[in-house]
């Protein structure tokens, strides 16, 4: 049993009528286009005539013009209260009209008659008359049908129910509501407000946000952290709003949430990633069973456009950074050139085409876990073309040569990279049973240079300063420098179409504690 919510509804005369307070009452919900409601109108008139002196008898109609039509047709003594907003009907959990509620003095429901079952209405009339010390209700019950089914309440109509649920008391959403004028275009409005990354957004209406929140079991008000640079509080609701705008489906939300949690960590350092003039941005890699459940692309064109999950998950994360964190180009986002990855960059690893451990397992998770990993990359994917090598050693050698130019050819031990190995290159590696560790070592071996080759010269002033080199002895200058400080700074995943011998490399940003460290998070529910 539910308690009827407090209400103030306008009757047909334009008067506001309040819900009963501290007294017994009868409240009946009707709508005009319901034949049973019309059959019940004379019964309601009789109830009103009989009981209205003793207690409030409210008849609530669900459609304003329908209420007027009913009044014109039946000319009842009572004036129908207008609930065309349907908020009272929804809060009272009316699923069928007519529904007659009997309320006690505390407002609690003591009877609920759904549709028209003559015997129930007769019993209600008789019991209530007896309680109130009234004579019997004068009504020719024999003229009425024994039973009539009710009709669907407009408050549970699929056209209305999501909106009502989103707006109702107890709705999980709490964010500020913004009313867009009827003459304003909502998409233009969102551009004007600066919510957009430059592309149109889906308006985050309350019903869409609520639908998005159905994608997670977590509390909408749970705080994930504070997003730099404004240190805006990131709640699950705020992520859901931005996910709606990005075009996500509710089932993508757990991935977006995990990615946002990952970038909120100190290790990841989203503030630096956004503020740097280098144009860095998160690259999001998804592993585990969720890839298939939400239809992510890991094959042909995995790093490109055309897959909704890939495109909108990455975009949602960026919109959270923009809108909740306040990182906007020209403000705290200071990238010199910008980067198309700043719109979105998310893909799944093709684990089934990967003969090695998938990324998440390498990073300590179980194979059946769904995991998101965020890397900070400043450019890429840069293709490394090798259609000729037929051994793992040769192919990894080409990759090593290709990776030598990351940041600049003399920038050594400065960054990391994410190597996306395509299926045809996987096949080449597997001719020799080449492991990921073999690949990493070979890349480091091929790209290693003695320090003396990394000294600034007339061709380029980058690298070790000549003055510093002049202080060094021969042994120091002959020391071999590796392109990547540690082998594990070369992150390797498998993705891409079956045809084509071009692996891709995302070039890193400043890595380690002064920059951004890749972070993995298990995707929850």
């Amino acid at each position, binding site marked *: 049993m539910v308690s009827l919510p407090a209400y103030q509804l306008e009757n047909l005369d334009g008067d506001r009528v309040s819900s009963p307070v501290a007294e017994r009452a009868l409240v009946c919900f009707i709508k005009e286009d319901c034949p049973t409601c019309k059959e019940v109108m004379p019964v309601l008139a009789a109830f009103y005539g009989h009981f209205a002196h003793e207690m409030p008898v409210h008849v609530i109609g669900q459609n304003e013009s329908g209420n007027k039509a009913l009044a014109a047709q039946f000319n009842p003594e009572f004036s129908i209260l207008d609930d065309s907003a349907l908020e009272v009907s929804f809060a009272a959990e009316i699923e069928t009209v007519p529904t007659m509620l009997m309320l006690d003095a505390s407002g609690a429901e003591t009877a609920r008659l759904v549709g028209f079952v003559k015997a129930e209405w007769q019993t209600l009339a008789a019991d209530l008359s007896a309680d109130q010390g009234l004579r019997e209700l004068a009504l020719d019950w024999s003229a009425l049908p024994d039973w009539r089914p009710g009709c669907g309440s407009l408050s549970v109509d699929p056209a209305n129910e999501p909106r009502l649920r989103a707006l109702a008391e107890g709705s999980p*959403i709490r*964010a*500020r*509501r*913004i*009313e*867009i*004028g*009827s*003459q304003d275009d*909502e998409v233009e409005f*969102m551009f004007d*407000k600066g*919510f957009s990354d430059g592309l149109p957004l889906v*308006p*985050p*209406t*309350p019903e869409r*946000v609520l639908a998005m929140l159905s994608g997670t079991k977590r509390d909408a008000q749970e705080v994930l952290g504070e*997003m730099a640079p*404004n240190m*805006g*509080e990131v709640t699950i*609701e*705020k992520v859901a*709003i*931005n996910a709606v*705008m990005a075009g996500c489906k509710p089932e993508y939300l757990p991935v977006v949430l995990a990615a946002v949690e990952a970038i909120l960590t100190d290790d990841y350092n989203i503030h630096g990633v956004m503020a740097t003039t280098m144009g860095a941005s998160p690259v999001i890699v998804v592993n585990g069973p969720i890839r298939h459940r939400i239809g992510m692309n890991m094959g042909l064109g995995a790093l490109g456009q055309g897959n909704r999950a890939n495109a909108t998950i990455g975009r949602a994360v960026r*919109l959270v950074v923009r*809108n*909740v*964190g*306040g990182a906007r180009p020209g403000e705290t986002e200071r990238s010199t050139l910008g980067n198309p990855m700043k719109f979105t960059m998310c893909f799944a690893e093709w684990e089934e085409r990967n003969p090695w451990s998938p990324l998440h397992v390498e990073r300590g998770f179980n194979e059946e876990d769904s995991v998101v990993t965020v890397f900070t990359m400043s450019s890429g994917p840069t293709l490394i073309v090798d259609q000729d090598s037929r051994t793992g050693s040769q192919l990894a050698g080409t990759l090593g040569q290709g990776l030598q130019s990351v940041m600049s050819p003399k920038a050594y031990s400065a960054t990391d990279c994410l190597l996306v190995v395509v299926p045809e290159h996987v096949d080449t590696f597997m001719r020799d049973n080449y492991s990921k560790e073999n690949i990493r070592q070979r890349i480091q071996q091929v790209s290693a240079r003695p320090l003396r080759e990394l000294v600034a010269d007339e061709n380029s002033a980058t690298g070790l300063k000549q003055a510093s080199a002049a202080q060094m002895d021969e042994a120091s200058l002959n020391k071999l420098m590796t392109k990547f400080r540690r082998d594990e700074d070369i992150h390797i995943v498998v993705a891409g179409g079956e045809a084509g011998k071009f692996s891709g490399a995302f070039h890193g940003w400043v890595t380690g504690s002064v920059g951004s460290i890749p972070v993995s998070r298990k995707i929850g529910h």
Partner: protein
Amino acid sequence: MTTIMDPTDERVPVTRQLTPRPDTISGRVALLDISKPRGSVLLDQLEEVLGKQLPGVTLTRYAKPTFSRPAPAALREEIHQNNDFVIEALAD
């Protein structure tokens, strides 16, 4: 009317901001009568006074068909395209 949920951290008010007010009036000024009684009287007086005080300013009279409805899109567009300021006579 569409309602959307605020995607930001809510530190900036979302109410429509006033266009910055210039220190001086120059160029083109629209005088808009919304068609409420005696709005034209006020605008007649304003037109006369402004014409004397701001001789370099072009004054153009406009009227909404009725005060009870928003101005038609074509009228809004015309006023927007051809004027730098609008003075609207709002009430009777």
